[in-house]
Every structure is written in structure tokens, then in C-alpha cells.
């Protein structure tokens, strides 16, 4: 795994907290390659809740295609980093 910059690390840690909160699992572990297949219960129904929580946490807003078009956690992390500038 590549070393993360401070900003990436901050984003990742906040993301991990959101994931644990949404999936009600305090021991949940994620990394850049985690996809919906890897987390039980991550379907389109929960995905929207997750994305809105992410929006609230980071103070950003995604458009519909960004919400629907993410491949993995790494892409989400990059998207947030891009929005935060």
C-alpha cells in the first residue's frame, strides 16, 4: 500500500467512522479497494444513506451520477479529495 498524505489520511479516517456508523459495525475495516460486494448490506438502499452521511461529514455535495458511479472506496476518497480542493 502507498503511504497516504496527511489530507488523504484525514479523509480516510473520517470515512472509516462514517462506514462504521452506517453499517453498525465498530470493527469494520475498509481500504481503497473495498467495494459493495465486500460489506454485507451495502446495497443501493444503504448506499444513498452512506453518501448523504459522507456529504454531511465533509461538507460537500455529490451529483446523482457521482453517487451511482463509484467503483470502490478509493474512488470515493479521490472524489472527496477533489471536492475539498
Amino acid at each position: 500500500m502507498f503511504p497516504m498524505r496527511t489530507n488523504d489520511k484525514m479523509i480516510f479516517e473520517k470515512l472509516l467512522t462514517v462506514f462504521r456508523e452506517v453499517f453498525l459495525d465498530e470493527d469494520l475495516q475498509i481500504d481503497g479497494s473495498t467495494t459493495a460486494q465486500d460489506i454485507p448490506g451495502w446495497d443501493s438502499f444503504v448506499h444513498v444513506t452512506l453518501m448523504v452521511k459522507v456529504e454531511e461529514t465533509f461538507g460537500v455535495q455529490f451529483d446523482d451520477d457521482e453517487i451511482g458511479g463509484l467503483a470502490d472506496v478509493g474512488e470515493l476518497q479521490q472524489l472527496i479529495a477533489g471536492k475539498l480542493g
Partner: protein
Amino acid sequence: MDVLLNPTFWLLATACIIAMRAPMPWPQTTRFGVLSLVVIGVAFDWRASLLMLAIGLAVWLGLHRIGETGAASSGGTSLCLLAVLFAPSGVFVLYKLVQTNGDASGLPYMLLATLSFSYVFLRIIEVIRVVSASRVRLLRPLALVGYLFPFHMLISGPLNVYAHHLKMDDEEWKPLTLVEAAKGVWLVVTGLFLKVVLAEGGRTFIWGTEAIAVESWTDAAMVHAYVLFDFGGYSVMAFGLGRLLGVPTPLNFRRPFLAGSVSEYWRRWHISLGDWVRRNLFTPLQVRLVRRLGSQHAVTVGVLSLVVCFAGVGVWHRFNSRYLVWGIGIGALMALEKMAASVWMRQSWSRQKSLQWAVRVVGVAYTFFVMTAGWMYVWEESTQ
């Protein structure tokens, strides 16, 4: 004569594959639009071809105007957006009303039916949503005609994705290899086999040349299998033709009778419709409601969105109360399943393999029973 037995269609399709795979300066999307106009005009009806050109141009003009005036906030742009949205919706409503109650022999209806307008309408909604809300570019007029009326997906879908269609122009030209061609031909012939041998052979074996009658649960189960091979056959043919043409064409069926829940069934049956609903209705609706009401209401909002979306899917099939009830029922069942699954996943014993296997088996039987019963409820009326 049905288009599948029409040699002109297959000759034209072969010519289109050659034209699409030839190195030419024209963008792929525009080339495909022109080819679709020609195939529909020659193999189906030249008036249908003119109608698709007119509809494509009207949608393009409306959306182009929005693009010219910038963000969709100015008065003129909003009016334009309303016009481009309401005109196709009006045509769709009239089309469905005639399909359900009226005289289906009039020329406008016949032409719209030739073009499978129900699917075209969904593509129009997608292109309006994507172009007006995102930074996605609008295709040129003839290319847009190709997205809205792809000749190989016209009979019964599947529903192609606008963003994927656009990407055709960005891809580097590659010749069709013999292995790719063989795989494409295999898909087309397999689709034809599913349609002719399994669907029609099965139908004539069971019902003879009489019309299909759904009078018992066994009839409904057999019709369920018939529609899978019929609709699935067309979809596999379209998928194969899409690969030969180099036009993005989604997979529409993936062993739906192995689905362990109604939610999974909709990820395996008419997949491209389920994906369309997710992209264009469910996600936008749920996102806006959750943002407005707060994530503490996410479950209620999710249930409501599911019911509303599937009620829409029901009415999209036919304008009658049975399809509406069917859609609401499917949405409600999916919401119930979702809640049951979240309770199940929180139990430690739910991780036992044997238990998971047993639930899977029961789930497959339950899904087939529930979906067959649901289809029977709506087909009873359409086959009478």
C-alpha cells in the same frame, strides 16, 4: 412476417457491422445513428424512420437550447426544459392510453409501437436528466437518434446507458477479430435459439397454435418460463449484435430463476430496466429526500422511494390498476425483504454456512412463487 425471419434485416445488420467496424473519419455515434435510421426505414417502415428523426431532432433542439443558455436556472432555459420533458411525456401517456384502452390500429400508434416507444421514452428521460443536470455533453442530432432508437435493441430493449453510448467516440479504432466475431455470432444464434426453439417450440408444444391462456398457477409458471426465453432470447441477440457492432449494449438477464429474493430477482430479470430505475428514479429521489429530511429518516425514505419507483415501473408496463397494484406490491415486498435482511445480518448465528444454504434454497422457491403469482395477477388480464 416477424423481423427475425426477414433476410433483409439480417443482411442490413451484417452491412451495419461492416460499416461500424470499418476505419472511417465519422464518429461512431453518428455513424450508428445513420445506420439505425436506414435499417428501420428499410426493414420496418420508412415512416417510422422519419418519426424517429423528428423525435430525435426535437429532443436535441430542446437540450441544445439549454446547453447554449448555460445553467438550467434562467427562465427561458427552464421553459425549454419543461417543453422537452413534457412533450415526450404527453406522447407517452397517449401511447399508453391507446395501448390499454383505445383503437391500436391507428397509424401514429402503429409507428410508435414499431419504435417501442415505451423504451424510447425512458431513454429520453435519461438523456434529459444527464445532460441538463451534469457536465455530460449532448450528442450531435444524428448520433442522438442512434442512442434513442438503436435498431438492434428496438424490439424489446435492453435499455442502453447514455454515458456508455458517448464513450464509443473516445475509443480507439480496433478491427473485429475472428474470436470476437465468433463470440458475437454465437450470442446472436443462441438468442435466436432461445426465442425460436425454447420459447416458441415450448409454447406450441404446450398451447398449440392457440393463444396463451393463464388460467391456473401451472399456466402462470409456464408463461413465466416462456417470457424468460422469449424476452431473454431477444436480449441475448441484441447483446451479441451490440458486441459485433461495437455499440455498448447491456446484459438484460442473468439466471433470474436462481434469485434468492425479489430484490435479487430484479438484479437478474430485465436488469437494464432495474438499472435505469436506480439511475434515474430511485437514487435521485432518495438522495433528495434524505438530504431534505435528514439521514435519521433514511429507512422510511428508502421504503417510500422503492414503492413509488416500482409503482412507476408497473404503470410503465400498462396503464391499468392491476399493474399499479403489482408495482406497489413488489416495492413493498422489496422493502420488507430489506428490513428482514438487516435484522438477519445482525444475528451471529446467521453466519452458519448450512443455515445460509437453507435460506438460499427457501429464498429461490419463495421468489419463483411470489414473482409467478405477481405476473399471473397482471397477465390474467392481458391474455384474456
